[in-house]
């Protein structure tokens, strides 16, 4: 930690958050909001004179509320930067000023204001970490109702020599050293009802470690662990588990159904011991809840501004689970640590190093090749209506609608979603690598034979096509008459593609893309949605059953959903008769073409 503070190549911004990210790989423009610390970190020597005189007392976050701190405080003794900070929401302000008076070096400045600045970077590593699960949701364990029920994090602080009790374990109620301590595993993990459905990875080993720490300090202590199964899969883990058992820690297979408090503050646990199939009651002085992990609270905000993908558990989704485990689907963005999924320290460190190398690999040449899949304007067809500029999520198109000069695409800013080409009513935009002809040629060959049997699906590269791949990797079976046409974004799916497909005899058409808010191209899929709604109305007017055109949002993690949607599409297809298809073909052949 200290190395970070003094490294000449690292600029550290604490109390700061990323507000917005623009640009693309190689040159991301990041807007950072830095809250005022009210203490000059370059001058502060962490002498602590300010905190001694501060009259405001608040719970200490670092010790999870087990001790108190002042409004001017040092987060913890080894903090980096090694400087105090003032929480202005708690501070009495100018009227008090006792801290400023006590500071010899005059490093407290009440007039300091928040900073809002921009930086340009080539790559970004997202290491936003985790948040412990809030066990108050699991009322059966009585956390906050019973004082001697603690979380694993509270326990950590208590057994820490630098913690609020100097490493002495004390029951909050009764203030005595406990003779017996229990641990409940999987609190907020592996549950369909409360918390996450996933395994939080570290809690088994963390509890085993805690039992060893306790046995070292208090060899006679009675320790019980209530668990579903112990997952000691890492190097040296099984050995640790065996040591814990040999030291007399009792492992009871079964999670408690309820906890009640006894008169002396101890708790009585009712548990079905599934090893012997019997209900047991255990009285324990203290109970520790082994909390699971959740993604940190800012995850969703970052995901939205950066256009990243999340798994159904809320952690970031990597580009490939085995071959690109630290890459985001967006080039130039990498993941490290628990942001990507629950993991222990060793794995987090490994991933941090891996992410660093992936970033270096991208940057070391000093130049970057841009995406050649961009849109182009055919000037002679352009009527300067300005629609393309309106729909472009990257503001990459400029049109002067007054002077009626043709639109111009800034290819460096264009990310290639193709929404402009889909929205242009005059055929004035060519989307390279996904042109109208290229896509329609796929439709034509797919529907050349037995068109009525086939399910034409447009799938966006980042979510729905990846979701289909995920269904494959999971070996989920779905009807074999599904045919996918890949576009970079669902925003590329031109109305004409769908009319063309129906004209060629398609019984049903599915347009699929990333969920709203998850679009890889910021918000291009909003235009997909609007377009489909418009098309449904047109279909009704033309006398074509609107339900034959479907829109579904399928994420890269939703393999199961992909397979289900395909099965539903096949049911829908079976309701479309040959006569109905022939009628549609006739209607569409008679229609005036867009261009």
């Amino acid at each position, binding site marked *: 930690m200290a190395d970070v503070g003094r490294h000449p190549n690292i600029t550290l911004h604490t109390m700061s958050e990323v507000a917005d990210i623009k640009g693309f790989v190689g040159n991301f423009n990041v807007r950072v909001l830095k809250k005022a610390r009210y203490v000059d970190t370059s001058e502060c020597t962490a002498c602590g004179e300010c905190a001694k005189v501060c009259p405001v007392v608040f719970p200490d976050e670092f010790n999870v509320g087990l001790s108190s701190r002042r409004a001017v405080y040092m987060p913890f003794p080894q903090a980096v930067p090694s400087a105090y900070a003032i929480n202005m929401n708690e501070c009495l302000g100018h009227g008090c000023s006792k801290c400023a008076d006590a500071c010899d070096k005059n490093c407290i400045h009440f007039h300091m204001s928040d900073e809002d600045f921009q930086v340009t970077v080539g790559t970004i590593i997202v290491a936003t970490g985790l948040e412990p699960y809030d066990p108050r949701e699991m009322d059966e364990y009585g956390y906050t109702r019973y004082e001697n029920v603690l979380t694993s994090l509270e326990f950590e602080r208590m057994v820490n020599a630098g913690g609020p009790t100097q490493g002495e374990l004390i029951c909050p109620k009764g203030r005595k050293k406990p003779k017996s301590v229990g641990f409940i595993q999987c609190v907020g993990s592996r549950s369909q009802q409360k918390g996450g459905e996933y395994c939080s990875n570290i809690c088994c080993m963390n509890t085993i470690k805690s039992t060893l720490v306790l046995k070292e300090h208090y060899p006679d202590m009675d320790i019980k662990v209530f668990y579903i199964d112990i997952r000691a899969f890492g190097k040296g883990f099984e050995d640790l588990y065996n040591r814990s058992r040999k030291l007399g820690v009792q492992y009871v297979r079964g999670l408690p159904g309820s906890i009640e408090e006894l008169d002396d503050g101890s708790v009585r646990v009712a548990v079905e011991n599934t090893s012997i199939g019997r209900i047991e009651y255990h009285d324990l002085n203290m109970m520790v809840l082994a909390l699971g992990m959740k993604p940190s609270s*800012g995850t969703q905000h970052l995901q939205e501004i950066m256009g990243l993908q999340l798994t159904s558990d809320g952690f970031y989704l990597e580009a490939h689970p085995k071959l690109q485990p630290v890459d985001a689907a967006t080039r130039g963005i990498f993941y490290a640590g628990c942001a990507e999924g629950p993991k222990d320290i060793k794995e987090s460190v490994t991933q941090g190093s891996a992410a660093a190398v992936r970033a270096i690999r991208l940057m070391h040449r000093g130049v970057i090749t841009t995406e050649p899949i961009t849109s182009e304007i055919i000037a002679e067809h352009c009527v300067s209506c300005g629609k393309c500029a309106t729909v472009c999520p990257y503001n990459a198109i400029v049109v002067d609608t007054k002077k009626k000069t043709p639109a111009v695409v800034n290819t460096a800013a264009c990310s290639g979603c193709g929404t402009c080409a889909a929205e242009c009513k005059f055929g004035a935009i060519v989307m390279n690598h996904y042109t109208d002809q290229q896509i329609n040629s796929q439709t034509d060959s797919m529907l050349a034979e037995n068109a009525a049997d086939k399910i034409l699906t447009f799938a966006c590269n980042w979510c729905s096509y990846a979701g289909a791949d995920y269904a494959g990797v999971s070996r989920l079976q*779905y009807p074999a008459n599904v045919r996918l046409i890949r576009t970079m974004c669902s925003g590329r799916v031109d109305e004409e593609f769908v009319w063309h497909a129906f004209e060629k005899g398609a019984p049903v058409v599915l347009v699929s893309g990333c969920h709203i808010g998850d679009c890889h191209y910021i918000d291009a899929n909003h235009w997909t949605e609007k377009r489909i709604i418009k098309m449904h109305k047109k279909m009704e007017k033309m006398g074509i059953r609107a339900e034959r055109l479907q829109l579904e949002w399928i994420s890269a993690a939703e393999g199961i959903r992909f397979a289900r949607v395909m099965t539903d599409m096949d049911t829908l297809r079976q309701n479309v008769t040959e006569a109905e298809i022939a009628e549609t073909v006739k209607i569409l052949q008679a229609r005036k073409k867009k261009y």
Partner: protein
Amino acid sequence: MEISGMAAVAGAGVDKPRIGVYVCRCGLNIAQTVDCAKVAQDSAGLENVVVSKEITYACSEPGQMEILEDIKDNGLDRIVVASCSPRLHEPTFRQMMKKAGLNPFLMEMANLREQCSWVHMKEPDAATHKAEDLVKMAVARVGLLWPLTEEIVPLTKKTMVIGGGIAGIQAALDLADTGYEVILVEKSPSIGGVMAQLDKTFPTMDCSI
């Protein structure tokens, strides 16, 4: 990019494409469900297809060598690789195209593994039929593709690390020690994250800070 693009839009002066089709068996991943030989055979009759054959592992070194030799011997200018997801191996085969002196964007993949053999395991006939369709679609498309070129732009040799926990710290130090500038953004007043709050850590039982 601009010239080739516009030329193709206008449909002007393009020679008849010479397409090579490679139906990958992927060991048995594709071949145990899809009749790869049949797909290759039937695809040979498609318009502009000069070579069509099955191949054990298209992505492997010998597999790529075989395709490269065919390109040389038969003057192929467009390639269809019917194998796994382009999300996995598109970069591999684009690289192979470059090696052959062809534009990497004149290559198209048909996804016979993730979107065919693995999802229709109990219907080999339907899967083979689908595979033929997918190759047909790819052949039609590849004939209409035009060369694209990547532009080279300057890059900022700086990394932003968001989050100052153990993972962010490690990434920042590795980058900084290699000589890259790092901007580390942390929302709380100190770095350290959850790890700093822990006492001893498993499996070695040493102190966390």
